[in-house]
């Protein structure tokens, strides 16, 4: 049997019936035939790892279960390119915290997935390794920046995956590829080993075929880690306990600002239908207002770019990664950075450096931080009245490859519904809730800090009563 679109429970059943090695081999075969360019590196150790698990016996909750990892999360011995020429040959000598946890749980790492360069983008088109194609329509983008992670799940090339979400990078591709993606509460999952783009905003998050598998993965990766000072003691890995199909009495807030100008009518219709479905299942909904939403995008981009300009300073060709030759160390560093980074990364480093520079720091960066506080207050107020918020993840379905490349601003604007969540640090899950013109639509469910269980229960209930998560793209072979 070809390894296709299996839940983790089905994968485990298959392993019992055959072996971890055979199952991994099936996935590798599917990957081998892929037309979507979802992986940057396929692990040459995956089969060996699976074989070892077969021999040593199935230990751990994910024994023999294969997983795909975004190429900005360090896996010892595998390249960690971040979708960039700069790190194309960089092989980390250590595992990220989440990778340690996955290996302890017995997971088999299939490979590293494609992404926008240094996670900067919403389409996976800025990758040095070429774009990933959307399995639903090969002429369209898979979303980004974790486009590879979402697309390989949708194409049946991995049962689940890890991504990272700085301003929507898990949820956007989940929505565009018709899979489930979670951005956990800031601090719920250790960032140790994930290459920093904007530290104050990002979290590692799971992507999967269904809500249960998200909970399975969270139970493995969440929880405190002394190596990340921002990892919180609050996150308790008991997420699977939340998988109860019951939302009777749940209070849903619908922020009107998230259905603003420019929203695709097909997306709007699918999301409202989902909210009505929740009402039929016993939930109540009311409209809420989050007045600072319109300022979130500007604040987000100033903060993210500012942090990026500092975080990416370490890539200077001195110790690892790409190096251009230069007569002096000045020219070596500047040539390395000129040739090693792509256009979008350079744009963000330049804008971020500008926003932090003397004379502009107060005008831009400090102001953006003040706006961030107001955006956060919007969430505190709204979530004081309701249990969860529901909105479209993306204002539009997957767009065509190349369509927005010439106009970076139009690409930034498509993040309007995802970035406020990162500014506030709250958890948010994107769930398939319908289709428009044959393309998947994502419903975004936003919750209070560390209340992922409420999100999972809501999403699980919706999923148990609908069939969208069982819809598959046409065979991409």
């Amino acid at each position, binding site marked *: 049997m070809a390894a296709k679109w299996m839940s983790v429970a089905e994968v485990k059943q298959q392993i019992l019936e055959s072996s971890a090695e055979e199952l991994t081999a099936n996935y590798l075969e599917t990957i081998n035939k892929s037309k979507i360019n979802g992986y940057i590196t396929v692990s040459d150790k995956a089969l060996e790892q699976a074989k070892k698990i077969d021999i040593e016996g199935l230990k751990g909750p994910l024994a023999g279960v294969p997983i795909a990892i975004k190429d900005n999360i360090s896996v010892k011995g595998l390249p960690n390119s971040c979708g960039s020429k700069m*790190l194309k040959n960089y092989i980390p*000598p*250590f595992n990220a915290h989440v990778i340690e946890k996955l290996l302890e749980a017995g997971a088999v790492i299939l490979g590293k997935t494609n992404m926008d360069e240094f996670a900067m983008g919403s389409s996976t088109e800025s990758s040095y390794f070429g774009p990933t194609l959307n399995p639903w329509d090969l002429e369209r983008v898979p979303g980004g920046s974790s486009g590879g992670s979402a697309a390989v799940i949708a194409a049946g090339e991995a049962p689940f995956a890890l991504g990272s979400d700085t301003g929507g990078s898990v949820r956007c591709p989940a929505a565009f590829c018709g899979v489930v993606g979670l951005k956990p509460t800031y601090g719920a999952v250790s*960032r140790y080993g994930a290459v920093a783009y904007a530290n104050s905003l990002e979290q590692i998050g799971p992507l999967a075929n269904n809500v249960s598998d998200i909970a399975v993965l969270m139970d493995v990766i969440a929880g405190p880690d002394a*190596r990340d000072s921002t990892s919180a003691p609050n996150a308790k890995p008991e997420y699977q306990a939340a998988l109860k199909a019951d939302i009777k009495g749940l209070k849903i807030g619908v922020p009107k600002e998230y259905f603003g100008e420019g929203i695709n009518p097909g997306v709007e219709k699918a999301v409202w239908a989902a909210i009505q479905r929740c009402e039929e299942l016993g939930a109540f909904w009311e409209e809420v207002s989050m007045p600072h939403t319109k300022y979130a995008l500007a604040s987000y981009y100033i903060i993210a770019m500012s942090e990026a300009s*500092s975080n990416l300073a370490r890539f200077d060709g001195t110790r690892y990664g790409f190096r251009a030759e230069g007569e002096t160390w000045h020219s070596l*560093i500047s040539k390395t950075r000129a040739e090693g980074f792509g256009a979008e990364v350079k744009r963000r480093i330049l804008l971020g450096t500008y926003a932090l520079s003397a004379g502009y720091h107060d005008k831009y960066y400090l102001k953006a931080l003040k706006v961030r506080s107001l955006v956060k207050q919007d969430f505190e107020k709204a979530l004081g009245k309701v249990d969860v918020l529901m909105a479209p993840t993306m204002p539009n379905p997957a767009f065509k490859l190349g369509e927005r490349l010439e106009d970076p601003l139009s690409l930034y604007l498509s993040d309007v519904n995802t970035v406020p969540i990162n500014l506030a640090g709250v958890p948010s899950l994107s769930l398939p809730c319908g289709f428009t013109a044959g393309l998947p639509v994502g419903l975004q469910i936003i919750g209070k800090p560390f209340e992922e269980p409420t999100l999972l229960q809501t999403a699980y209930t919706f999923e148990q009563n609908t069939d969208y998560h069982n819809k598959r793209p046409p065979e991409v072979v």
Partner: protein
Amino acid sequence: MAYENPERVMIGLEIHIQLNKLKSKMFCGCSTAYHDAEPNTHTCPVCLGLPGALPVLNKEVVRAAIKVGLALKGEIAEETQFHRKNYFYPDLPRGFQITQYDYPIVSNGKVVIEGEDGEHEVKIWRAHMEDDPGRLVHIGSIAKSKGVMINYNRSGIP
């Protein structure tokens, strides 16, 4: 002879104290006893600034800084902040130094010194914590050296 200063020249001193009596580096667990060690043996992903590594503040550094502050009769801040000082230099593995800017741990201290004409009070404006970069090593003199080697053993020393 008493010193005269008709031009009212004021001299500020920036004094660095290496906290090498502490067991581990400022943001990682690497040992500070690197002086007789082989180059680049007292290093880890954190003090090498490898992508994805994160700093975790050594509590003992804060304790030592407070002691310095008390010795200087300074005010110890209830809340203090670190900032990044960004500059490119091959011995600086992250491309920025982690230092303190507008909220240092110690401010308004003083040292009283004995001069020929009596006691003088030297004001200590501030004292803050920061980490050291690595060291550039040249073979022979800088002018004659064919290349530059970098020893990161010192990188991250408080």
